[in-house]
């Protein structure tokens, strides 16, 4: 059998199948599986046969380039409309900007500004778009050092004249990134010099139904035209994603109080103990926003914050997270304390509870857990309570157990923050050498509101 020519070669192949012999004509594409020859047929299907089924293979002349339909181009949209505000898009990865390579059928990332604008021409009518790529990673691979890169990149964007920044990210940890950027820019009472909108897509952008286009349009619109940052309701950074399963309605969510609550739906992102700041409606490609009454009121009654430079995260700080519930055992708590962690965040059940009581005398591990927690706190580990229910407050005053937990030195009583935010805030506070116990009680940038509306 002849050697297989390189990808992109047009070939005629005679193959042995389980029912005899056949011939295929197609273009060689990357093998779908090891040991297979994969061809793209003229009808568009990819077909793969085992290499050892090839009887003969002939290289053919390439056909004429793609059919002339649809190539009646009327030119690229002009990105140089000078009176529009400048928005910089900082790309970290994810499928918000990808396209199909029709030769191989593969979905490839595309992130040149021209490509973005040609994919979503509406953007050029909203702002002058600059785009930079600081990585191409799944958001689930993100670490605090990547937050620092984003803080620097956004600082640079503002320094170079951008009125707003859009961060595109995979969606797994998108909301955590938004919270991290919020503390980095606004934790000490200031604010970023412009709006920062973090967005992504739940359905890959190669498909017609993708939410990527509208999310990006809304994010650029907010970055270009949103109100000055006030800090009151958590607007230092925002998460911009579909408000519901419909298109045309995009929620502007407080970056410090948002969580991904569904693995697949378009409207996976919901505010935790908070409300959307605004809704962006998109009609015939044109975005417009409506502020929530509460946000409007805060904007009218409070002056904008002063812009500052960002503060960074100390990547050496180690934080552990453990869930409360029937399987929480003391040895894992000891292991955290013995491995150089600075803080341990418990996601406690209910109002913030741990299995530390033994009323029937048949659960000695509970006694041991109480003892271990007291011990690791005494040895200097910060132990913080967050809410496994995700929504609602941590309230360790309601039951005696909660009060015991407070007496043991567990921090975080009374927090109305989302659990992810508590973790990020802990990291940020420890990075700045601040008083963590006090910070957890405070509302630094809207992440810990005094009341919960729904």
């Amino acid at each position, binding site marked *: 059998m002849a050697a297989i020519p390189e990808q992109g070669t047009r070939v005629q192949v005679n193959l042995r*199948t*389980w*029912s005899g012999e*056949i*011939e*295929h004509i197609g273009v060689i594409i990357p093998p*779908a*599986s090891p040991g*297979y020859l994969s061809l793209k*047929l003229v009808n*568009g*299907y*990819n077909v*793969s*046969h085992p290499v050892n*089924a090839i009887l003969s293979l002939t290289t053919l002349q390439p056909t*004429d380039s*793609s*059919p002339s*339909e*649809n*190539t*009646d*181009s*009327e*030119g*690229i*949209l002009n990105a140089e409309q000078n009176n529009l505000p400048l928005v910089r898009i900082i790309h970290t990865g994810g499928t918000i900007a990808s*396209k*199909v390579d*029709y030769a191989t*059928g*593969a*979905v490839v990332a595309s992130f040149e500004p*021209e*490509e973005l604008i*040609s*994919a*979503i*021409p509406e953007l050029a009518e909203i702002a002058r778009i600059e785009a930079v790529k600081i990585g191409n990673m799944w958001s689930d691979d993100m670490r605090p050092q990547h937050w620092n890169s984003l803080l620097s990149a956004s600082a640079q964007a503002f320094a170079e004249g951008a009125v707003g920044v859009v961060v595109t990210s995979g969606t797994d940890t998108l909301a955590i990134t938004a919270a991290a950027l919020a503390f980095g820019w606004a934790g000490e009472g200031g604010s970023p010099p412009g709006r920062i909108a973090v967005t992504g897509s*739940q*359905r*890959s952008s*190669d*498909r*017609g*139904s*993708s939410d990527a*286009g*509208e999310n990006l349009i809304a994010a650029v619109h907010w970055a270009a035209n949103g109100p000055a940052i006030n800090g009151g309701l958590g607007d230092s950074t925002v998460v911009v994603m579909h408000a519901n*399963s*419909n*298109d*045309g309605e995009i929620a502007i969510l407080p970056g410090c109080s948002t969580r991904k609550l569904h693995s*697949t*739906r*378009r409207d996976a992102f919901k505010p935790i103990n908070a409300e959307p700041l605004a809704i962006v409606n998109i*009609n*015939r*490609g044109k975005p417009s926003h409506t502020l929530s009454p509460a946000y409007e009121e805060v904007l009218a009654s409070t002056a904008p914050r002063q812009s500052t430079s960002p503060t960074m995260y100390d990547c050496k700080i180690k934080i552990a997270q453990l869930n409360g519930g029937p399987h929480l055992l003391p040895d894992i708590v000891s292991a955290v304390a013995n491995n150089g962690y600075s803080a341990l965040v418990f996601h406690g059940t209910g109002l913030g509870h741990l299995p530390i009581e033994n009323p029937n005398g048949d659960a000695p591990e509970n006694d041991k857990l109480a003892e271990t927690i007291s011990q690791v706190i005494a040895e200097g580990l910060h132990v913080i309570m967050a809410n496994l229910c995700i929504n609602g407050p941590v309230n360790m005053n309601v039951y005696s157990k909660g009060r015991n937990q407070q007496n043991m030195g567990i921090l975080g009583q009374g927090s109305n923050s989302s659990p992810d935010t508590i973790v990020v805030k802990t990291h940020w506070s420890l990075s700045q050498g601040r008083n963590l116990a006090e910070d957890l009680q405070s509302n630094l940038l809207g992440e810990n509101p005094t009341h919960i509306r729904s």
Partner: protein
Amino acid sequence: MSAVEGDVADASSLNPQTLGFMCGLEIHQQLATGKLHSRQPGELHDVTIDTVPDEWPRVHRRLRIAKGESGKVDVAAKFEAKRNRSFIYIQSPNSGLIELDDQPPDPHDSEALDIALTISGMLDAHPVPLLQTMRKTVVDGSNTSGFQRTTLVATNGVLNTPTGAVGVDVICLEEDSARKLEAQSTANGEIVIWNLDRLGIPLVEIATAPDVQTPDHAKETALALGTLLRDTRRVRRGLGSIRQDLNVSIACGDRVEIKGCQDLSWIPRIIRLEMARQLHFFRLANELREEIKLPLLPDNRDNTDDIIEEEVRQTVRKLLDKEITDVGKAFDNCDSKMITSTIAKGGVMYAVRLPHLAGRLGTKMPDNEGAQLPRLGRELAGAAKLAGVAGIFHSDELPAYGITEEEVTNVRELLAISDTPSCGFALCCAPDWQAELALESVIERGRLAWHRIRQEVRNVVVKKGAPEDGTTTAMRPLPGGARMYPETDIANLPLAEEEWHRIRSNLPPTRKERQKALLETALGEDQIMQLLDKEIDELFLAGISGELAPGMPALPVKGWATIILDSTSRDIAELVPCDTTSIPPELLAIALAVRDAGDMTREGIVPLASEFLSTGVWPFAGLTTAEATKELISEMANRAESQGFKPADSSDLLAIVISVLDDRADFVAERGMGAMGPLMGVVMGAAGGAADGKVISALLRQEIQKRM
């Protein structure tokens, strides 16, 4: 005879051979399984826009059209974006997050895959050893995702038809689309409303090679494929469960895919009308070229010179520019209500010039058999409608529709073509952005009049569920293979060689083979055909051979055929009450066995069988042991006796009949044989349930006759 001869007005006379006719079929057949890529039931909910339940959730979506490969914004994509079409998806009970494109798909339904492979085996095709799911881009909103999932299952098959073998290029397993409930034209763009019930039901797509020899052979091929598919006994049946697309071309035209040929008897006519249409537009193109001294199109598309065509394209592009003129003031005193009310609502009347096309747009004229003759005006209107407008007015059909001669003169003046009679025009009355888009698309289509017809997808015009006259309208350009790319959410699935051999050695019998088996049972032709049509011949054969259930006696041939064909199941179901399909055939068999043994009258079958079901006598898991079967047989016999359904001796019955007749001697004397009907019920009542109606009827007749 040359390759471009023939009378367009007499489609039946066109000669396929000399015209270089080529034709292939694409058949889409729904499979009788659950959905292909979600584990939802494959059921249809026949609602209309007026009857769809309020509690079914609705989701409003748009589709973003993929940009061209060059990275530039192409015209088709821009057109889609501009027309602002949006979609409302109504979530039927058998659709969930996967159908809503809010969750990735599941792997293939294994039953559906098995059927697709079986069909591949029946068509002698070669299986694909690694099944790869692809996404086929679809932008009309019929798929929530913007693509249709499709998996190539086998290639290189063959279908035998009486006229000759037809090659089968591909056999695919794909998802059916959502069902359109309504398209609303709004000032803000079209809103199309879809029912998600059908979305994801498995379809087997079979595409033949262009081996179809004549328009009639196309029908024959469709029939042969339909029969073969039904032979699997695992396909859905009924209206819309099978759809035929026709790929048609003649040498001077090009490939056109025609959708919506549900009624096979229309296929030859639809094909011939398409041949006529291609011929007409070839002639028109050369007539137009001749007029402005452009090189003519060769008779055969294989001889097309791309460089010349590009030059023609550039010339025509300049000739038909997209300059749009507001001619609203020509209609200030218009009599047409449609026009005045649209303008009153903020709409506009826009116009474009159509140089050289005056007199060539045509008016509606029938061909020799009553179908609309092909004409450019209709194609232009079709192009405009894609922008969401109701239609256009063009110069060849004016004055008409409430537009006067004077208004036409004013329009020509405003367009500065008063002195150019060869220049036609088109008008569009709609909201401004829509009118503009519609007229741009009229120009795009008008330019194509100088060219060979483009490859496109067309739809049979349907009126009241049937083809209006066999003509078609344009839907969209024919998508190339380039619009297909891998479905990364579904893993490639290797097919095992043993699996293929298992399928090959278990192919279902054909209808002929089944018929042959039935002919050996001394059953009448009528009942044989009914058993085959209802696909219950296997049930019938199992019954008469005593293989229906353990311990079940062999059932009488006629009696068993009758009870599974007649309304017995329905009557039982009505009494239970339950669905007819949930009446177990084994229950019918038991009732028949009891009756056949002389332990129950015919009248006992329905009440006792329904009692078995409604009182829980019937075992939930069916008949699993011979003991259970025998027990139920004797239980039914006992109940027949205690409830008076045990057949009375005919001597007892005779006594009852005589006593009834004696009591009503006057009535019998007065009515004669006419007394029979009314007295049937009386005798039946007197005999209790224990009488066989047939026997009573015979006795009554005999006794009344004696008295006359």
